[in-house]
């Protein structure tokens, strides 16, 4: 099942989808989006590529296996709960750091974002893991 249209589409759509998934992940805190949806998009990007080029090629083109991705996601999510312990709060309490306070570029980063990143990778990893195993011939 080699489709040139699908292959070209997949080649160009994949980076766009990955960027879009990151955007969705980041903006999730204030507007619709978040780690779960972003993770689904990231997974969809890989699956689209796999539909065009086959599972084997796709796995070669991404530098970590779906299993690693899932594991990294879980670890990041778990690790995001630890800073709170050092601050003397309960495990998984949100801790925030503000950069450039007061300026136009004010940036707030906190452990919930890290947690969302973990969800993002875990969801994407699990999705590609399942799909790749089903699609593999």
């Amino acid at each position: 099942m080699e489709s040139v249209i699908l292959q070209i589409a997949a080649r160009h759509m994949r980076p766009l989808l990955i960027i879009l998934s990151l955007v969705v992940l980041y903006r999730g805190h204030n507007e619709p989006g978040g780690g779960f949806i972003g993770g689904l998009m990231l997974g969809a990007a890989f699956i689209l590529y796999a539909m065009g080029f086959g599972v084997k090629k796709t796995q070669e083109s991404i530098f970590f296996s779906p299993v690693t991705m899932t594991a990294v996601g879980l670890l990041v999510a778990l690790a995001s709960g630890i800073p709170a312990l050092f601050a003397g709060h309960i495990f998984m309490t949100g801790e925030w750091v503000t950069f450039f306070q007061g300026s136009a570029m004010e940036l707030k980063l906190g452990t919930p974002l890290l947690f969302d990143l973990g969800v993002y990778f875990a969801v994407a990893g699990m999705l590609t893991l399942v799909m790749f195993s089903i699609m593999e011939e």
Partner: protein
Amino acid sequence: MSTGLFILILFVLAGLAPFTRRYLGNTAGWVFALFPFGGFIYYLSLLPAVNTGQLIMESHAWLPVYGIDFSFYIDGFSILFSLIVLGIGTFILVYAGYYMRPYPMKGRFMGYLVFFMASMQGVVVSGNLITMFVFWELTSISSYLLIGYHHEKPEARSAALQALLITGFGGLALLGGFVLMAIPYGTYELQAMFANPDAIRNSGLYLPALLLILAGAFTKSAQFPFHFWLPGAMAAPSPVSAFLHSATMVKAGVFLLARLNPVMGGTELWYVLLSAFGAVTMVAGAWLSITQTDLKRILAYTTVSALGTLVLLIGTGTEYAINAMIIFLVVHALYKGTLFMMAGNIEKMSGTRDITKLGGLYAYMPKAALIMGLALVSMAGIPPLLGFIGKELIYEAKVYAPSWRYLVVVASFFTNVVLVFLSLRLWLDVFGGKTPAYSKKPAEPSLALIIGPLFLVLASLVMGLFPATIATPLTSAAVISVSPTIGAIKLKIWHGFNLVLGLSALTVLCGVLVYKYKEAVIGFANKVNLRYFTREFAQLFSAGIEYFLLITKAQTKNIQHGYHRFYLMTIFVVASILVWSIIWRSDPLVLELDFSDMPLNLVAVVVLIVTAALSAVATHSRIIALIATGVIGFGITIIFIAFSGVDLAITMVMVEVLMVIMAVAVLYHLPRYVKYSATGARMRDGLVAGLVGGFMMVLVLQAGTSQLEEPISEFFKEMSYSEAFGRNIVNVILVDFRALDTLGEITVIAIAALGIFSMIKLAREQSQIKKN
């Protein structure tokens, strides 16, 4: 030094042992032996203080709220047992260091031995029932590892598992007994129980607690009918048998009974149960040992018999009985440890431990013959070894037993005759007589293999020769700890001409006679065993386990049938029945439906969804059914958008798209519809679907009209930005307020994904193997 630290050091040593072999080489046994030897000296140094009535206590907080601490309670009895464990342990380590030389993974073996030693030491000094239980279970586990050391042999594995199952079952019962025992006291501390024994005796918990504790003690100490695991455990290497199955682990049950004697003992029930089980075990062990031919199995059955004797003596509970129990404990540990080590030596030097294939070894190993001979003299209860004093005391205790005197004396007489007979047989048939053809020329065992037996026998001899100056101070405090109301008897070797001495002489005479006609006796015993005991308990036990496994397998097959559709159906039916029963009993549903302000485009979407659902049900093609469900999904997405649930809508779109891709990928592997389901099955599925859909509808409608409590959404709306700095409430809930839930959820999906991955991979590999 403290007891807690000492035990900790032993555990650490056990963990390090596998790695030390490279550096220590063959001296490992000697180096390791320094640790228990140090402990031996330490506990010996405590003895004078303890003999003046002092108690040594130590406590490390663990779960103080529940009255559970790592506390140690050291009195005369603990010290006596510690000396046995550590003293014999010292020699066992030296012996094992050399004995195990030809086997692989010696370092690990030494580690297991030290691990066991630490656990056993923990049991005997525990001052808290839970502490004791933990160490007790650790002895079971280390025993499992040691018995199964030759794990490439199936019989070693099954013997190890059998021992673990039986002692593990007993351990569970024991835990139950301990918990019940602690209820009247509110603490697990032994000290509190010793201070007020009546609290448990007068409560209704005495009977169940006693039965459970006895189950634990009897399984551990191989009492009839649980005796069979001990002979089975002879699959272990000889150092293990010499240590665990003669002097220490099997005595843990006896230790426990004696330890709890001041609290639980002295009642009628205690007396009857312990005497009955002890007496039966004593006789059964002696009887079964007659027909054995394997040196180690002969010793194992005599150990069973000795354990029975000890339990019987604790049950009897008189002044003489307790004194006899303590002395016999020491006697037995000394001679049985020696004999097991010597059995190992004989096997090592001659290549066999079958008594019918042995003989004439005296010419090759005179020193070993002498040592073993002394140990056997002690076993037969002949002066001047400590065994004589032990046996005299036992006879004395039984002649003056409170009831069933004649029965107990006869049983004891029979047992001792068998012991005399076996002593003669183990020496004369091994070292005397004709020399059969050995596979290799037997030689004197090396120093490390013989030093342990030598010292143990010397200890027995010295204590037998100087009972008043050496044996009495060692044991008197132990007697008082086991039974505070009685005193220790001053031991002596000569009691004058009396009934007991006559019994002893008669025993020896009968033993010699039995040995003279041994062919006839063994033949008779074999005949009786074949006639009446055709099935061994070990076989019954494994048959029981197999039967149990069969039942569970059949049960699992019924419940875990592997049909996904029936799992789903079970879940759906149970859920809808539960929900419907609640709906049935709650207030009647008031429908206030008003469609007047519903926009026309939404009506169109609803019509689309309903049509799609109907066509999904009616179609004969999988693809159409799939597309139809996709239409339903997207229709619902539109409804979400209409009610400004953008997050949900995006998620829904993603999920729907991926579902379709996934379904297409799966579809490729599925067979075509071979046959359409029967009408009955379709009716059934329709009913289930209707039930589920119905309750969902009613729930949604009811949720819209009824309000049970203030909705929690207000809280999230308020706190979302001020507390969590996020305006997207759904996301804030997911990653901040309920982050732990989310963590659990992603863990679950990760596990599910891994499961799917490995299942598909496994199936693929199997089909490839088939192809090839």
